[in-house]
């Protein structure tokens, strides 16, 4: 193993990771302080917090009798740390891989250079650990070691820090194994599913992202995270046969004086780490340069008809553009997440609320959640899709510039697409909301109309901003919209949404304070409709003007 090669590869991966996250690297060599700023901050915070908590602990529990009562609690927390670190490291390293999967800039294995697969695999595992997993370990490790120094738990704290490092390495190695296997598995699926491959891929990606984000939100946010830690601390030893808790069990035995068992689980943990590393190396050697086979979608003559789109008044070129965008959003992985965002955002709290729905005393809360289910996902879809629908053309935008598209045709096609998908999301989430929360007819009526108004108006607002701020750069990853225009769009959509919903505010308050209602909700819906129509019309015109400017100044 040439360790210099490993170090070089890690630094390359680190820089490419920063580029993918959108940072600009202007210098070839950076100061170590800048490059490691977050690690330094985590280390300092850990030491400071560890110092204060440790001295407070040692002063408060100076009596050994009292101290001995609290020490087991502290120790049980330390024992749970390696497993917790392992779980969130898996989540974050997988998240980093997902981020990388959509980029155009290839992080191809430099197989033509004198680098072995072992060096490449080790560098990839170490690079995966960089970022949140390692920063958190530095912070927590410094904190518990400093605390342990004052609290008489120095050795358990040091062992815990080392076990956390081992856990993060194991998690990262697991991600590396998963990455290569997934690549090979996807290839096999494409090959076996033939023409259906494109839909298998779409459905598979949707399910994967939905599951991943559901787990991600569960681990990171809300009461799920705390319950999770408690469960690990209490149940770890009873699931000793699961390899991923061995580091935690090792800590338990070593710090409890059971040295034989402790060293046994240390040996098993080291075997696991080595096994994953060598398996990852073998997989990389076997499939590292593997490229999935081409997806064959059509055979022979392909001649779709303008069909329904033609009947709706779209010309052949407009219909062609809509069909092309539909294919883009079902085939490009980075665009699929746009569909998943609004669904996940609403489904995760929806599932949490599911058990509480219908309970006494939660009527207002239910109504609020139901309202959000009706209005929020469709609005987010309109807002995000409208914002990206022009920029998603990427470098292939020259085709739009060079083809005989008028600004009016371009906006008409893109606007239809955004509205269509806003309405599809509305149909799915509002049906779910109406069923789960058992909404009364009046609320369903109001919610449905308001959601449709929001979709039409916010699609126009975001499309106008999306065309104006379109970013066609695809390296290192497709940008689609410039940051400033994304923010402008967020503000514009928030203001537009508020203006549309404003007539409904008295009705919403009346559900909490009976008798407050000053405006019939049906009249309020009518006023909302007028406001939405004005916003949609004005911004549709602005979108056409922006498209004219885009086509006129194509490459300037």
């Amino acid at each position: 193993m040439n360790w210099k090669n490993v170090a070089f590869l890690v630094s390359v991966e680190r820089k490419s990771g920063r580029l993918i996250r959108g940072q600009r690297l202007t210098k070839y060599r950076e100061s170590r302080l800048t490059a490691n700023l977050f690690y330094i901050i985590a280390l300092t915070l850990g030491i400071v917090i560890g110092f204060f908590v440790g001295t407070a602990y040692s002063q408060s529990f100076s009596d050994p009798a009292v101290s001995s009562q609290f020490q087991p609690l502290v120790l049980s927390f330390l024992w749970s740390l390696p497993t917790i670190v392992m779980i969130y490291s898996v989540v974050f390293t997988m998240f980093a891989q997902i981020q990388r999967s959509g980029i155009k800039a290839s992080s191809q294995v430099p197989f033509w250079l004198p680098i072995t697969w072992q060096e490449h695999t080790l560098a990839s595992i170490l690079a995966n650990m960089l970022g949140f997993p390692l920063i958190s370990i530095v912070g927590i490790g410094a904190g518990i070691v400093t605390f342990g120094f004052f609290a008489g738990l120095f050795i358990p704290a040091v062992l815990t820090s080392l076990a956390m490092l081992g856990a993060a390495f194991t998690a990262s190695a697991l991600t590396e194994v998963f990455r290569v296997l997934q690549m090979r598995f996807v290839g096999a699926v494409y090959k076996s599913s033939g023409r259906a491959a494109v839909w298998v891929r779409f459905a598979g990606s949707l399910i994967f992202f939905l599951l991943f984000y559901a787990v991600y939100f569960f681990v990171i946010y809300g009461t799920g995270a705390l319950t999770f830690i408690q469960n690990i601390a209490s149940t770890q030893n009873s699931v000793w046969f699961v390899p991923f808790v061995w580091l935690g069990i090792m800590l338990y035995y070593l710090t409890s004086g059971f040295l034989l068992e402790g060293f046994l689980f240390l040996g098993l943990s080291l075997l696991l780490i080595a096994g994953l590393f060598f398996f990852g190396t073998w997989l990389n050697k076997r499939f590292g340069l593997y490229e999935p086979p081409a997806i064959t979608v059509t055979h022979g003559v392909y001649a779709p008809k303008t069909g329904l789109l033609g009947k709706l008044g779209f010309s052949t070129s407009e219909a062609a553009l809509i069909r092309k965008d539909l294919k883009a959003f079902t085939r490009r992985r980075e665009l699929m997440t746009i569909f998943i965002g609004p669904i996940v955002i609403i489904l995760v709290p929806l599932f949490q609320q599911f058990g509480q729905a219908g309970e006494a005393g939660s009527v207002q809360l239910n109504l609020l959640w139901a309202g959000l289910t009706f209005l929020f996902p469709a609005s987010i879809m309109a807002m995000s899709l409208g914002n990206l629908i022009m920029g998603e053309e990427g470098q292939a935008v020259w085709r739009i510039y060079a083809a005989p598209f008028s600004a009016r045709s371009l906006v008409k096609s893109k606007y239809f697409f955004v509205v269509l998908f806003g309405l599809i999301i509305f149909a799915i989430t509002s049906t779910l909301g109406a069923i789960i929360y058992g909404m009364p007819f009046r609320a369903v009526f109001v919610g449905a109309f308001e959601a449709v108004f929001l979709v039409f108006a916010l699609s126009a607002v975001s499309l106008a901003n999306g065309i104006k701020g379109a970013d066609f750069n695809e390296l290192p990853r497709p940008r689609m919209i410039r940051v400033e225009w994304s923010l402008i769009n967020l503000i514009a959509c928030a203001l537009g949404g508020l203006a549309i919903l404003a007539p409904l505010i008295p009705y919403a308050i009346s559900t909490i304070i009976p008798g407050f209602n000053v405006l019939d909700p049906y009249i309020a819906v009518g006023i909302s409709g007028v406001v939405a129509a004005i916003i949609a019309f004005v911004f549709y015109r602005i979108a056409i003007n922006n498209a004219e400017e885009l086509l006129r100044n194509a490459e300037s």
Partner: protein
Amino acid sequence: MSSNVVELKNVTKRYDAIVAVDRVNLTLNSGEIFGLLGPNGSGKSTTLKMLLGLVHPDEGLVTVLGMPVQQDPVALKRMVGYVPEAPRLYEFLTGIEYLDFIGDVYGMQPEDKRNRINEYLKALQLEGREGDMINSYSEGMKQKIALISAFLHKPKLLIMDEPLNGLDPRSARIVKDFLQELKRQGVTTILSTHVLEIAQAMCDRIGIMYHGKLQALGNMNELREMSKLPDSGLEDIFLKLTGTGDVRPVVEELLK
């Protein structure tokens, strides 16, 4: 209305302090194959983009197929076929889906579109791969798709930047012969390339750009006269006219 297919009158384009195209005058006739040559950064691509209305001149007038390019850009684009240097295609589409998209965008009749797509796919040996996603194509296959999409709607003017990039010898020959046939049918082709042998063999007239200026313009004999190299090929003429001819010291420096 002018009868010339392309007419540039004193056309200038600046990017901040850089003058990309400097007072260029050029007239092209119907059924002419014109080669636009020049070193990297000489203003060729900018000139081609101005012909399609993708870049606005700061000064001068660009007329294509009898109308100023900004008068009705949509109508103009309908009559022009364009292949940019390193064309980026929609890689999530299959080859045939992409060509179908192009046919629809140019308003082709379904029957005509289907027949022509199949003819081109067969001629350029893409049959059997047309249903695969473009992201699995080699660069040469992508170039073939880009070429077919430029020919598909029977344009009156073809603007092509390095059209034979990555093509296998058979396909390159087919494209060259096809362009000659189109010439006989009255189609005008503007060709930008660094492969001087291709330009010499195919083009009726050649323009050499350098530092944004049209340094030389004419057929091979006229260029030989201008460069005072009576028996030379285009490579020597090009190197002399652009003042970049003496390459030996550079090679010797590299060999040290």
